[in-house]
């Protein structure tokens, strides 16, 4: 039982990070119809910005994180303004290629500024743990779950109740009708990219916490958040969060129990598991758990 609880906790912490990234994917997809492959790059950049604000600019860690999240939001929105807006009206394929190009540029920028070597993010959590019975709770995982829950709740409240949140949903449903109400689609796009950038940064920070955990490769987590988004349904924010948790917990359980049940699958099977889950769910529900059938215009 305690092993199960331990894995459940680990998986939830992992899933919370996937959820943040997957939600970022979904927000941009809903608004613009584009899957932003640069998300992993924004995530890594966000974590390095937190590092820079903390280590180089000597801000307290909490302030550095808040600053990095805000900066990443601005960078996300600026990316939309400067790069993506020029692509309006181009085929989706071309826009997706541009986001892939941006991913490489971001990775290159990171390594040329901060190098390849793993760094210490400067978080106060380190390797501390808290014990709850037989279960060992890593402090950084507790913070990850708490922060993710807080930010996700704030996002959903914004999305549901605020004027801009309603405008975002209206635009996602019918861009022209939203424009006819005076809702600027450009503003909605920029805000979507901004929120997505902020979420990516927070995911990056929680992923890079701990000793020597900040490296240019952390952006690869986006490859796993990707199936999380598909599992939830491309255009469902709630689905993205649930998908993230499902993938995270499945991965943790696979790591924990694989030796008992299917050792023949190979030692790296947990890495493949998200894709297995994705394929299985898509076989039953082709549009993901909460996705809508209709795939809309760019």
């Amino acid at each position, binding site marked *: 039982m305690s092993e199960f609880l331990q894995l459940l906790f680990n998986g939830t912490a992992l899933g919370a990070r996937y959820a943040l990234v997957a939600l970022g994917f979904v927000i941009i997809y809903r608004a613009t119809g584009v899957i932003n492959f640069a998300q992993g790059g924004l995530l890594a950049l966000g974590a390095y910005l937190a590092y820079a604000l903390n280590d180089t600019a000597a801000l307290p860690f909490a302030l550095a994180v808040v600053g990095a999240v805000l900066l990443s939001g601005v960078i996300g929105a600026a990316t939309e303004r400067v790069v993506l807006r020029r692509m309006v*009206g181009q085929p989706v394929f071309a826009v997706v290629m541009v986001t892939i190009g941006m991913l490489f540029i971001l990775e290159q920028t990171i390594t040329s500024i901060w190098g390849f070597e793993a760094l210490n993010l400067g978080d106060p959590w380190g390797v501390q743990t808290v014990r709850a019975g037989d279960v060992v709770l890593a402090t950084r995982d507790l913070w990850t779950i708490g922060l993710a829950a807080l930010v996700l709740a704030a996002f959903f409240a914004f999305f549901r109740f605020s*004027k801009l949140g*309603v*405008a975002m*949903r*209206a635009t996602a*449903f*019918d*861009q*022209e*009708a*939203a*424009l*006819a*109400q*005076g*809702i*600027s689609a450009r503003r909605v796009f920029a805000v979507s990219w901004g929120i997505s950038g902020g979420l990516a940064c927070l995911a990056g920070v929680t992923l890079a916490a701990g000793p020597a955990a900040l490296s240019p490769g952390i952006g690869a987590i986006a490859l796993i958040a990707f199936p999380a988004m598909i599992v939830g349904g491309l255009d469902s924010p709630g689905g993205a969060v649930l998908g993230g948790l499902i993938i995270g917990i499945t991965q943790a359980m696979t790591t924990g129990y694989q030796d008992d049940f299917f050792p023949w699958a190979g030692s790296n099977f947990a890495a493949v598991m998200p894709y297995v889950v994705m394929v299985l769910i898509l076989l039953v529900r082709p549009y993901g758990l909460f996705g809508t059938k209709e795939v809309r215009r760019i």
Partner: protein
Amino acid sequence: MAAAPAEAPARAAEMLTVRNVEVVYDDLALVLRGVSLEVGDGEIVALLGANGAGKTTLLRAITGLLDIHDGRVTKGGVALQGTRIEKLDPPAIVRRGIAQVMEGRRIFAELTVDENLRTGAYTRKGRGEIAEGYARVLDLFPVLKDRRSSVAGYLSGGEQQMVAMGRALMAAPKLLLLDEPSLGLAPKIVEQIRDIIVEVNAQGVSVLLVEQNAQMALGIANRGYVMETGRIVKEGAASALLADEDIKEFYLGITGDTGRRSFREVKSYRRKKRWAA
């Protein structure tokens, strides 16, 4: 139809002026070929015309929605109370006081009625004013009162049209553009919609009413225009147009020749054909 303008009755100060507008889609399809039209302050003006005549395109030219259809105004201009607006984007035009009810209602079906109405007030500031406008809309459409938290997609066609109209009115427009509001609605509902247009107009909102239901539109309009393949081919007082032989025949289905079908039948036939294609 002959391009012979009927008499031009005297009218109030101008609200909307469309001058010699040409619209081209995709840089090649000339759809409006020099359209001029006016809506006086406080008027209801009807715009009639067969499917494909260019009525919706004209509304897009007024509200700035051509852009996302790859359309452009290549000639002429649009002015609201004397100020040119044809270069503005849709939000700026809404802020200047033009709201529209789009063809096919285009409500946000996944949003609640309340949220739909609130999107209409997106460009407005001031909580108090918005709340006042909201109350006025609910007075105009009492059926929406109990349905505020319903998801709009579940409403009947008539209720959805009311949401679309209420949403447009939430912008507190000076000029309301309506694109075929009676389309697909039962006669009883069409009457209700008609009465509400009259009431809104009585509250001081000028109206440009695009319709295929000429009887309804000319019944409440001061003046009317008839459009055909991108041109205005007839204009005049509503009463004169109602008495016009061509209009009687093509739009009202009143004719000595018993074999001819009413225009609305022709239209629904065309629609079906288009879907099948």
